[in-house]
């Protein structure tokens, strides 16, 4: 559970970020497949980090068929032996989705940033100390991911990519901490005015504090 504040997006928001719908379309690109096969392959491809229940797969397949993105081999009940094939509309849908940029324009709610901003104004709290405890935490996390990579990454390309993504993300947070550290230090040297001016008034549009 201790991972929770930082370790979020890929696992928990999987449904939102990558729909099962598109994942199944991607698997069907390789050729016609049975429902059961689809589920197994899905779990293999995602490094078994994200389990999927059977009902979810079949519901999604039915919707896809309804929308004309896949075709079934005609068997009436949606059993594990029913075969599926992607249609040309399905191919177009998949290609369009792959190229659609993720929604990065509105940054996620960032707990760490908020904590640091608040720490600046809480008397008796050393911001650098706060930041260091986060930093240590982050590095420990990265150590664990690195250890995973050291043992497993050679064997599983998909997993290695996921680990790299985690590492780079965590590193980015640490780098923000380092930069913030330097900025706060300089501000303290330049004069206290800039520190005590209250929470920064950010442009509404950025919506960091939404």
């Amino acid at each position: 559970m201790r991972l929770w504040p930082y370790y979020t997006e890929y696992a928990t928001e999987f449904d939102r970020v990558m729909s099962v719908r598109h994942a199944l379309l991607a698997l069907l690109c390789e050729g016609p497949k049975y429902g059961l096969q689809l589920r197994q392959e899905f779990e293999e491809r995602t490094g078994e980090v994200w389990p999927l229940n059977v009902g979810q797969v079949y519901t999604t397949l039915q919707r896809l068929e309804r929308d004309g993105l896949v075709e079934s081999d005609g068997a009436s009940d949606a059993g594990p032996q029913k075969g599926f094939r992607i249609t040309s509309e399905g191919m177009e849908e998949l290609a369009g989705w792959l190229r659609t940029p993720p929604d990065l324009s509105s940054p996620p709610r960032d707990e760490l940033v908020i904590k640091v901003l608040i720490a600046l104004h809480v008397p008796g709290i050393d911001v650098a100390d706060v930041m260091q405890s986060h930093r240590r935490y982050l590095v420990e996390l990265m150590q664990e991911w690195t250890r995973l990579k050291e043992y497993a990454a050679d064997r599983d390309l998909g997993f290695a990519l996921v680990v790299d993504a985690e590492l780079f993300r965590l590193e980015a947070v640490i780098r923000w901490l380092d930069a913030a550290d330097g900025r706060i230090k300089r501000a303290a040297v330049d004069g206290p005015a800039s520190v005590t001016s209250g929470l920064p008034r950010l442009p509404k549009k950025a919506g960091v504090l939404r």
Partner: protein
Amino acid sequence: MTVLEMRDVSKVYGEGPAEVDALRDVSLTVDSGELVAVMGPSGSGKSTLLTIAGSLEQPTRGDVLVGGSPLSGMSRDDRARLRRRSIGYVFQDFNLLVGLTAAENVSLPLELDGIHAGEARAAATAALDELGLGERASRYPDELSGGERQRVAIARAVVGDRHLLLADEPSGALDSANGEAVMRLIRAACRRGVAGVVVTHDAQLASWADRVVFLRDGRIVDQTAPLPGPESLLASSQNP
């Protein structure tokens, strides 16, 4: 089995108003088989810590013990002997002597220590083979890629019976793939019993270490907890 021990080491550069405290009362112990990363922003005294640990510089106060022997009582030549027998260095970008082939670069510390050329060359070739550079052994440094050069430097730092491997941003000038390869080699060396110290500002690099020590304004301010097994991470992620 402590290989490197630094006791309350301080280092002051310059004098008078230009005086700078590079290190203040730093204590650090590195055991055999352990890889320690020293992390800190630039100017935090990382490199000074490394050069003092490697006997390239003398601390202003405090003691450094390598393999149990204090450096303070040693003559210049004694320290040089210690370096060629027990300490291996890997620097960021400039590591190899031009004019010597990869194998000759690796065998140089052995030859300096009086081991005959043939024997030293055999040991060097073996070390390079181990790092997958066997067929590059007779190339000159300017015929090698950056990653290969850094790997040769690691081979040189561990060849013979070295106990202490000191690396200063060893993958700083490399892309991430080559940097990862370099760190894997350093880890492998540590697994064989070498005590390693890596100084860096790069968290990815530091995360390869067993223990990360945070340096700030010449002081050690924090360090990471001992690492749990790798399984813990997966376990935690499976039930959010």
